[in-house]
């Protein structure tokens, strides 16, 4: 019975992994399709799409917009969110529960509601939609995720280390930049990566606030009715390979560090 259970979970998990990977493999395979117009049927293998990505100008432009929006929104959300996370863990203040609620509410609000709310506000105030409004929207939904991610990291830092810094006559700025910040850095990096990923792939909130601007997901959405050019698959696959490479490098270096640590102790 135990043996069978062990065997069954390997099979079940493998099937789940295949399920997760099918559309990814499909997207990557069709980035090599000699598709000409519509990329639905397989017409033969080619490298052309990869070599001339920017022949489909609108795809490239949309990709550039997405990168720009992702970087700006990530910087803003990570800065604001890290500050809040430190305050939540380290200080006592009034309206603490209200503050926590205010931070978590955006995460339990469906994206359509966030998007429609911002759009309704921009409409009432008379702000024209464009890159600026997209960045405002993205910073908003990334902010809460940054707070949650960084807060866990702040909570794991021993306050005694900062006290030691103060005892050694470090001024608050030195204590922060020499002790707190370096220890927070892994959390901040993780939060920034998460923000960028969320921003880069967001469609729903963007669609309500983009006006005439085109991001990579909104390009795909509009093109879906007519057929996606294979260049879109190239960009998505390229981003995928880059991200997987980064994650694998992080995993392997963590494994190497574990081994080194085990060897020294």
């Amino acid at each position, binding site marked *: 019975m135990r043996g069978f259970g062990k065997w069954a979970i390997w099979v079940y998990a493998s099937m789940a992994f295949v399920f997760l990977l099918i559309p990814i493999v499909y997207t990557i395979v069709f980035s090599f399709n000699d598709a000409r117009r519509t990329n639905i049927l397989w017409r033969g293998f080619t490298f052309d799409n990869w070599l001339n990505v920017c022949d489909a100008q609108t795809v490239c432009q949309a990709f550039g917009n997405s990168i720009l929006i992702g970087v700006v929104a990530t910087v803003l959300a990570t800065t604001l969110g890290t500050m809040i996370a430190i305050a939540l863990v380290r200080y006592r203040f009034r309206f603490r529960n209200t503050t926590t609620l205010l931070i978590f509410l955006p995460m339990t609000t469906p994206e359509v509601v966030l998007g429609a709310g911002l759009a309704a506000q921009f409409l009432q105030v008379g702000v024209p939609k464009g890159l600026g409004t997209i960045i405002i929207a993205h910073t908003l939904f990334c902010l809460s995720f940054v707070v949650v991610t960084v807060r866990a990291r702040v909570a794991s830092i021993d306050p005694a280390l900062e006290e030691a810094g103060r005892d050694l006559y470090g001024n608050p700025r030195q204590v922060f930049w020499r002790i707190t910040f370096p220890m927070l850095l892994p959390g901040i990096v993780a939060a920034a990566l998460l923000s960028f990923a969320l921003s880069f792939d967001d469609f729903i909130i963007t669609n309500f606030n983009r006006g005439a601007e085109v991001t990579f997901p909104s390009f795909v959405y509009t093109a*879906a009715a007519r057929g996606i050019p294979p260049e879109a698959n190239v960009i998505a696959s390229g981003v995928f390979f880059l991200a997987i490479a980064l994650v694998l490098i992080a995993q392997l270096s963590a494994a190497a560090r574990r081994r080194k640590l085990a060897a020294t102790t």
Partner: protein
Amino acid sequence: MAFTAFSAQTSAAEPAAKRRSPIALFLLLPGILYLILFFVTPLISLVITSFQEPDPVRFGSFVNAFRWENYVIVLETYGEQSLRSAGFAALATLFALLIGFPLGYFIGITLRPYPLLQGLALVLVIAPFFISFLLRTLAWKQIFSDEGPIAGVLGALAILPPGQAITGTAFSVIFGLTYNFVPFMTLPIYATLASLDLRLLEAGNDLYGSPAVTFRTVTLPLSAAGVMSGTLLTFIPAAGDYINASREFLGSTDTTMIGNVIETNFLVLQNFPAAAALSLVLMAAILILVSLYVRRSGTEELL
């Protein structure tokens, strides 16, 4: 390693170290102002918009009013779509749990003796995040299309009646929602199971508990927190999603969900009051469900 783990525990259980300081205000103010400006006031805008009535002079624009009938009208008009959203999201959450729990168990417990394999398995679970959500959904559409392999096989086996498409049905929309949210279910479950002390399972075994009894009395209660955050992370976005159910993706006019209705009313019909009223109904429904759920499960610390 042991030292850092220990200090993490003490600092987490030591709120006494917290101080009052003006620095707190400096740290909080920018972010909180941002949330007030771009989260709270938009919600107020939605409330105001939801009560507006059509401008009697200028066609297509709206003036502030207190037309609460807007809510009655949208609920009457879109009651079917609202119920469908709740049903689709609930089914997708259930299926995601049926896939995500064993997967989280496999990575967190079965693979624990092999750290490198465990890391790779985690990468596979988060891999879908790195490739465009819309392109993944379109890939399923093409796999399920009439010319695709699945329809061919099912048609040949006479399981699929001729003329019946797979895309555009409730099945394909729920399938798509399940697919899109499985990682959100798996990761929190994995996280709680990864910190489960294996000696507890051994103890259950030593006390003559069958694997099923040990699972029910030890593993399941200890993974409740992960299951809870997983269901919330799946249900909330699934209930508001409008990609899977839209006609260009896996849905049809028979599978319209509340997200589609909000989008169409806001961006296409420009019927802003209806879109605003529906958004608020959706938000209120989700908040009520979430608070009931959180209270029932008794883990309020989660939020």
